[in-house]
């Protein structure tokens, strides 16, 4: 049975007139890998800093094991943080960096030595203890940061986009590493990222945030397969988001055609947002499909082709392993499980179709990355 160890109750954070976090209610369990996921400026780092104690909520409470800790300063809270740019102490070597927290806790010299060396072994930095931190590579620095935090055996570890500065290969390896460490040490990881693939790969629970509000909480499968609104559907994975009308339970109408689906609980003829994942669409001959359209562009992606198809002016993205040529007339079929219905929200209609195909794929460029870090700093 998991135990709740941290809770944010009605937390709002506002600076002057700007609201960064809007009435957040969230709880964190023991031994869980939870990810706060969202675009830059959504408030995820702010939430993390609330927990770490670097920020006080304008209103609301932060509770550790049921006890209100709003006024407890960071150095007294029993959580540890891994900072975005690692924040390693440049004037200390690797050993002293890792030992920092232990020295403050006044552990015995031999205890410190044992724990530090053990930790260095766990993060694969054996033999590095006397190196200067400024001479290490990004990946190595990151592992020192991890060691420095974990050597204190915290119950909760806060990670602020720790993998952002690493290259792709290293990032994927570290994702596996971090997950392994979390499970081996039975610690709660509260992880912040804007990379949805990363979140899906590592988390037990994902909290999707935007504009200071929680959009959805769920397991990776839930968040991917059953997004609650257009924002979540668009942010996670690729989605075709269409307007539809719920005729009745299990039947939805799109483009004037009725489709079977598996959702219910909507009012008769209620306007809804319909989400269909590009990999869930089956391409058939035009006469055999429920809808038919023309292919306008094809891009080879290695694993599959991205095919943009125009249906009566609305452009869909379909991912398929078969090649189709531009101008080809095709038909599509969608099974009931592949159609997901969401209630209309403020995000409806905001994400359009795949007319501007290339923009959809510019998920994270280096410029976005810079902007994001600036925002997070300002939030502090």
């Amino acid at each position, binding site marked *: 049975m998991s135990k709740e160890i941290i809770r944010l109750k009605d937390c709002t954070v506002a600076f002057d007139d700007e609201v960064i976090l809007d009435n957040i209610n969230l709880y964190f369990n023991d031994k869980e890998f939870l990810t706060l996921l969202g675009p830059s400026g959504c408030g995820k780092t702010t939430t993390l800093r609330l927990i770490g104690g670097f920020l006080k909520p304008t209103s609301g409470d932060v509770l550790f094991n049921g006890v209100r800790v709003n006024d407890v300063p960071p150095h007294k809270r029993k959580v540890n943080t891994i900072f975005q740019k690692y924040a390693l102490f440049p*004037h200390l070597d690797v050993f002293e960096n890792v030992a*920092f*927290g232990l020295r403050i*806790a006044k552990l015995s010299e031999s205890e410190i030595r044992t724990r530090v060396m053990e930790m260095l072994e766990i993060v694969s930095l054996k033999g590095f203890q006397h190196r200067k931190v400024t001479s290490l590579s990004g990946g190595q620095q990151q592992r020192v940061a991890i060691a420095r935090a974990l050597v*204190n055996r915290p119950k909760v570890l806060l990670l602020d986009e720790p993998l952002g500065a690493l290259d792709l290969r290293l990032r994927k390896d570290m994702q596996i590493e971090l997950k392994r460490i979390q499970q081996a040490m039975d610690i709660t990881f509260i992880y912040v990222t804007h990379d949805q693939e990363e979140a899906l790969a590592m988390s037990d629970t994902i909290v999707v945030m935007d504009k200071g509000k929680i959009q959805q909480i769920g397991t990776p499968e839930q968040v991917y397969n059953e997004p609650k609104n257009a924002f979540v559907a668009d942010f996670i994975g690729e989605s075709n988001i269409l307007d539809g009308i719920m005729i009745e339970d299990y039947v939805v109408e799109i483009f004037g055609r009725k489709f079977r689906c598996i959702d219910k609980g909507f009012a008769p003829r209620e306007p809804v947002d319909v989400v269909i994942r590009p990999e869930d669409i089956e391409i058939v001959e035009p006469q055999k499909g429920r809808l038919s359209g023309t292919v306008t562009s094809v891009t080879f992606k290695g694993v599959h082709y991205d095919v943009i198809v125009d249906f009566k002016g609305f452009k869909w993205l379909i991912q398929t392993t078969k090649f189709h040529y531009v101008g080809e007339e095709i038909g599509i079929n969608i099974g009931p499980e592949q159609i997901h219905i969401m209630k209309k929200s403020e995000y409806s209609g905001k994400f359009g179709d795949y007319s501007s195909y290339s923009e959809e794929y510019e998920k994270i460029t280096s410029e976005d990355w810079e902007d994001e870090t600036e925002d997070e700093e300002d939030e502090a």
Partner: protein
Amino acid sequence: MRRRYLAAVPHVIWMAVFVVVPLILVVIYAFTSATGGFTLENFKNMGSYMNVFVRSLWLAFLATIICLLIGYPLSYVLSKEGPGMQRVFIMLIMLPMWINFLLRTYAWMSILENTGLINRLLSSLGIFNLINRIFGTNITYIPLINTQGAVVLGMVYNYLPFMVLPIYSVIVKIDPSLIEAAQDLGAGSFTVFRRVILPLSLPGVLSGITMVFVPAVSTFIISKLLGGGTSILLGDLIEMQFLGNAYNPHLGSAISLIMMIIIMICMYVMNKFGEGEEQAVIM
């Protein structure tokens, strides 16, 4: 287009003529006598001025320590203020630096003189009468000026900003996430200071010490104006040899040479303490 470095050639020539050659001349003069032959006499004659050397080093040392004791805490508390306040206060600290050095020193004369402000104040408050009655003495003033204390005061007054600015500019550049990291690992404010801020501020401290000690050990105006004739320092000594009554450029050069060596030794020691990184500290 690497020929661009040739642009620096005129500069090198100028420096060679107007900086290097003069220094070579100093060395030459130090080792020659008025008649032109090689001699070590000048250095022997310096022996009689040993007390001047000691005094100069001692007063400069005192002034440096006092500047450090005042300047470091000041830099630290300043770094914690808001940016507007910081900018204003730095401007206020820099402002006296831009006022003529002589005038700044001269200003203290009116305050410290026997008939100066402090003594007048004490007198009008009846302090002297009180002391005279208790101790049976007959004083009308406290001798503040023309003492070594006044000279040190003058040095501290003139050079304090040179200690504050380097230290402040280093402290303020410390990555705030380092401080948060230390707090995250359990350090309270004092520990954060001791283990993170202090070690990282050392380059600034070394800069500050250098920028105070060097002028302090070589000044001659402060000692003239505030020390009267009682505490002659190295600077006074050198001045006298070149432009003063006892015209002896050879002796003056010898003393200058020794002063340069003292300064170079101090700076070498400082560099050893520091990490030998760039010392570019421009205001």
